């Protein structure tokens, strides 16, 4: 199976290690991974901040770049939700504004083929034990768009439970938002920081060394808060845990 990696603009620029981990993991599982170099951003930040018309060309660009692949895999719940949930809605809105079906038709092909990484592993490849080794105590934060947008459910936790050496600690208040919310963190800094601090305190109470999630944007916010509060905990993307093996362990 030949799949396209949609890494997202945030991961590409700030978290290349997550991208390498996804490549390593999928290759190990026998998947032929390609990284279409024309890819940039799905348009989520534009869309969610109220710039729908700026997001439309980005969505079209996404379709152009990824339309021909069998499957599109992304290590980001929120960018996955953007494509799957909001692209159809953008098409509907264009139609309601009397602009016809063109946008909907352009975006339609990529919508059902886009998978968040853990969804792809469990639903498409049918694996929960990916042969990973990660000898640390880990707590899992289900990010909002993964949890409620895509409905990832137990998939990430099942994958983590199958990792050798990993001890999974339940996170109190797991399904509460960490307070990132894209531009929300900039527009409402006080509330955002208070939410982040509560999330970090809950994570700390588990005694885990690592907080993991399937979205680096949330991890950036949580990790930044951890560093500021000097907790000693680390944020790690789930892909990096799943890519780690006994031969090549992640640090």
């Amino acid at each position, binding site marked *: 199976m030949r799949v396209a990696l949609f890494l997202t603009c945030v991961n590409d620029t700030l978290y290349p290690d997550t991208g390498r981990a996804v490549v390593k993991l999928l290759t190990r599982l026998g998947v032929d991974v390609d990284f279409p170099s024309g*890819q940039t951003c799905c348009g989520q930040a534009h869309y969610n901040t109220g710039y729908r018309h*700026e997001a439309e060309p980005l969505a079209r660009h996404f379709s152009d770049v990824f339309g021909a692949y069998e499957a599109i895999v992304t290590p980001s719940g929120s960018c996955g939700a953007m494509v799957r949930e909001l692209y159809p809605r953008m098409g509907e809105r264009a139609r309601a504004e009397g602009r016809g079906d063109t946008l909907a038709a352009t975006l339609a092909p990529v919508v059902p083929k886009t998978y968040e990484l853990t969804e792809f592993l469990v639903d498409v490849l049918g694996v929960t034990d990916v042969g990973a080794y990660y000898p640390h105590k880990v707590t899992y934060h289900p990010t909002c768009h993964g949890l409620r947008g895509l409905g990832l459910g137990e998939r990430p936790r099942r994958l983590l439970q199958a990792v050798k050496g990993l001890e999974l600690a339940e996170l109190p208040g797991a399904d509460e938002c960490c307070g990132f919310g894209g531009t929300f963190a900039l527009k409402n800094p006080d509330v955002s920081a208070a939410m982040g601090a509560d999330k970090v305190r809950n994570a700390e109470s588990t005694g885990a060394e690592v907080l993991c999630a399937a979205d680096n944007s949330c991890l950036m916010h949580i990790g930044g808060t951890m560093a500021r509060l000097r907790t000693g905990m680390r944020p790690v993307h789930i892909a990096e845990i799943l890519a780690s093996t006994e031969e090549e362990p992640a640090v």
Partner: protein
Amino acid sequence: MSGTYLGMPAFPEAAREAVGNATLRGNLRHATHTIRAKRAKAVSEVSDWAELREAGKRIKDHTLRHLDRYLVQLEESVTAAGGVVHWAADADEANEIVTRLVKMTGEPEAVKVKSMATQEIGLNEALEAEGIRAYETDLAELIVQLGKDRPSHILVPAIHRNRGEIRDIFTREMSEWGRPAPEGLTDTPAELAETARLHLREKFLRARVGISGANFMVAETGTLVVVESEGNGRMCLTLPETLISVVGIEKIVPTWQDLEVFLQTLPRSSTAERMNPYTSTWTGTTDEDGPQNFHLVLLDNGRTDTLADEVGRQALRCIRCSACLNVCPVYERAGGHAYGSVYPGPIGAILSPQLRGTGSEIDASLPYASSLCGACYEVCPVAIDIPEVLVHLRERVVQGGEVTRAGNKVVLRPAKGHAAERAAMRAARWAFLHPGALRTGQRAASRTRRFHPRTLPGPGRAWSGTRELPPVPAEPFRDWWQRTRGGKDGDR
């Protein structure tokens, strides 16, 4: 809406104060988490919750689509049952009608059932200006009124107060309004409740005018419905000679049978009860029983304009259960007052800027008072997609566009203060459409990474004031890929 809350600072500033207030945060956290857990349990007891939610949504959508027809039907049934219907286009008109009706009775006071609609129009203040005192009889609303405070929650208006604060308010203020609080009042719930009960009982027995809202109005029979937990509502609705009900036009359901859905979803979503302790229904007037004069004031106040908006109109499905407030992480930290409206929390963030427009600073900031986490949509018993409407309203704020105001189509200009953001969004879009330019930018960032500040200038300061920024990596992923084609050409 009334001007009661105007002059409020925008949401981020108003929220800052609440975030910094440890008592307030403690009160809110405790209250919302308790009710949140209870609600989840009450909802999980019902096996067909998803179907009930869908049914509620459909009934409301159907009614809104044919609102003109159902309003006429309602007016006919109310009139036939001996009531009088009044139409109020806005808050001023509604206040003027109610004031006139109370004056006609010659009474200087009225007892009130807690009502969002009368709060929305600032009725108590309007009556006070005409020398008429309106007594709130709901316990939490009484606390707010005595404390010269503003409500901060739809269902529990005094949620921001703890027991000690309530005892102080009772001791200090009750004598001003009627029966004083007893000497040596403590803050035990039983004593506080008994004090309020005795204070209120005097008012119920004296009152000749009652003022209420309604949770529902049944078009086919002209029946109004109030659900409540304390019994004060039933006293207000049955004891006075004159009853005046002020109700938003969206509160109609076509038939009695439709009530069945909401009488299940409303109590479980709001108070986590299987059924409301008191469900009162009244239809016009009945000889020698209950109020002999009944007036229904149907309030528009921006609702017809909201109905004209295809995406935003779903806010009118709201049955004011307040479940969305109780799960909202932003409401939990910011408190209800920060929303600058009688409708706080997620529903307030989409309802107020539609009813009032996005003209003021606070109304333009409300669509951003959310991290779009989606918890509100998940709990809403009529499935209002609050995040969808928030994004839709953000679009209105930053891009302007056509809206309906007082029945006329007007084109809004973009709100002030978004020029820099708009420019940044355009620049980002341009870079994202030109991968080469994006790569150049990434490489420049990587090459200069040792010189990057740990705090950001401008609007970014808000971020780095409380969080550390991640370091920029030595090489963006796309360069690594190009160099190694995914590690195949050798790596590290």
